[in-house]
């Protein structure tokens, strides 16, 4: 297997190319631009036989994806932050019509203040839109998960759109070494695309029909059952991918939690920084570990419960705020997932890394120690936003 150094965005574009996408419809937005510029270039040089549609907004980008996917074209797009927000309405339509559009979201904070830098506010705002959603922590994973997304979404028992979340700049703009799969292996892994309900006058179908009150509830229930049952295929795909690449992916992943009493929970690229903090605290004699959420939707309830059942404390680190609500959106989901357990860890909530602010290894160490103290003192109803000046 070839190992080369490449910018994250370009590796993602390579994955989309290797998957032989038919249509890319996109509107540029920092920090997503390099992905779509690269794809435009590959189409222009003829290396990728696809239509590149430079539409006039993200609302149109997702709508064009809807159209191309509905006639059976393998469809890819990418966006970030404000762009994802502008797509919002159409995201729900795509998942409800069961159109397996594949999208890389280069996570970016939301205005105002205007910021092009990363956090997870954009992700949290589209939490409930019915897409399969997963997080990459490094360039290799961004490449791997983009490839897997096609196989998962297009599986006939799935047929859901998939979002791969990639932290803005921290992943999109760094050059990292990654292993490139052979084209033959990828072709074997991702079968040629056949959408079973493609619009085709010879075999008429209607997509997204009107849903009056006597059917809307049933449609939503059916969609929900279908989304929850995609986990089998997700797990299967990752097992097959492991055979191909040697790299394994799981809905919830753990680092040094075997004998741990306390664990930190993260998502995305900050997980790798957090691992260093875990190593450092372990060298100081603290039995701490790290739990990382890879699969965000459908939410991996069982895997999460299994991963944290022996912990006394789980410290959840959020990179978004649910304004006026239970502040850390991930912490709040974790709490609700763990609530039915007879014994469960205490959950402590921290928020940080907003609008591209870095969280260092030292900051994670400090946060974990603080979390342990708060758990000991049973101080669990509040949350803390780390490193806020002037408070």
């Amino acid at each position, binding site marked *: 297997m070839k190992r080369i150094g490449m910018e994250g965005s370009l590796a993602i574009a390579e994955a989309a190319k290797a998957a032989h996408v038919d249509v890319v419809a996109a509107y*540029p937005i920092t920090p997503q631009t390099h992905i779509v*510029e690269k794809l435009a270039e590959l189409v222009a040089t003829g290396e990728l036989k696809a239509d590149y549609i430079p539409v006039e907004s993200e609302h149109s980008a997702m709508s064009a994806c809807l159209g191309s996917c509905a006639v059976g074209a393998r469809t890819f797009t990418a966006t970030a932050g404000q762009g994802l927000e502008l797509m919002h309405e159409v995201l729900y339509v795509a998942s409800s019509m069961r159109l397996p559009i594949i999208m890389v979201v280069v996570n970016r904070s939301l205005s105002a203040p205007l910021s092009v830098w990363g956090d997870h506010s954009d992700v949290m705002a589209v939490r409930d839109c019915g897409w399969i959603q997963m997080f990459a922590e490094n360039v290799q994973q961004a490449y791997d998960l983009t490839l897997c997304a096609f196989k998962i979404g297009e599986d006939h028992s799935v047929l859901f759109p998939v979002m791969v979340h990639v932290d803005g700049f921290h992943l999109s703009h760094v050059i990292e070494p990654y292993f490139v799969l052979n084209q033959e292996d990828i072709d074997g892994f991702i079968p040629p695309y056949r959408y079973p309900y493609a619009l085709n006058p010879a075999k008429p179908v209607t997509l997204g029909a009107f849903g009056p009150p006597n059917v809307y509830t049933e449609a939503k229930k059916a969609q929900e059952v279908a989304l929850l049952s995609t986990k089998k295929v997700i797990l299967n795909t990752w097992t097959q991918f492991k055979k191909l690449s040697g790299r394994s992916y799981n809905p919830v992943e753990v680092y040094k939690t075997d004998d741990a009493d306390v664990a930190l929970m993260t998502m995305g690229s900050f997980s790798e920084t957090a691992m260093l903090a875990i190593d450092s605290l372990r060298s100081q004699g603290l039995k701490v570990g790290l739990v990382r959420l890879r699969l965000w939707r459908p939410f991996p309830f069982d895997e999460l419960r299994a991963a944290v059942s022996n912990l006394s404390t789980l410290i959840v680190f959020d990179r978004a705020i649910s304004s006026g609500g239970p502040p850390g959106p991930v912490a709040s989901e974790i709490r609700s997932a763990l609530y039915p357990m007879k014994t469960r860890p205490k959950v402590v909530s921290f928020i940080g890394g907003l609008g591209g602010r870095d969280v260092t290894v030292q900051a994670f160490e400090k946060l974990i120690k603080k979390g342990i103290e708060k758990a000991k003192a049973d101080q669990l109803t509040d949350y803390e936003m780390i490193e806020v000046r002037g408070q």
Partner: protein
Amino acid sequence: MKKVYAYPKSLKRAPFHYCPGCGHSIVHRLVCEVIDEMNLQDKTIGIPPPGCSVFAYNYFDVDMAESAHGRGAAVATGAKRAFPDAIVFTYQGDGDLAAIGTAETIHAANRGEQITTIFVNNAVYGMTGGQMAPTTLVGQKTTTTPYGRDESLDGAPIKMSEILALVKGTVYIERVAVNSPDNIRKAKKAIRKAFQTQIYKLGFSMVEILSPCPTNWKMSPIESWQWVDREMTKVFPLGVIKDTTEKKDAD
């Protein structure tokens, strides 16, 4: 001694972040000169866009509220309707106005909103790194059209001024350029007239300004000034596109 040159009062003394040869800084200065000469500084509200001019509030010493990408005309509409004594202008790029914000621009114009739009056309999405805009010339190379814009796939450059001239609510639309001292003087005159149109409450006014972008065009500043004359003005001819101000009574 007679003072012949001064720094505009409504232009803050902050160093511009714009690239060498970029037209935005010239346009900023022209707008500020007009605001000063018409004594509007205390009444003016500006709506800057996401785009290279996203930091406009660092330069214009007037109230400003950043809009979401493309939504300037709608934000300006709200501000002007609720505060009719204010002089409200939007400052927008061609991605902002001619791509993502076409809908609100056309509809604000159609309603004849009493606002002024400063439309800076540099034929690319500058801020995001020089991708094709709807205004990109056929054959022009950008990061998303590496072999040049292909009309059969991407359409021809969209002429927003001509399109908006068809809309009844618009009363004054002129296309100018900021690529020579002569053109810069004409640009200022047009900006002045557009603000005057708003003061007289005649309807929607817009000045489209062809503006060099040496960085994304991959040219020297001088070449980019020449390119405006040689290529851009062929597709986007300079001059008054619509002027019905004479037919309307100022109220």
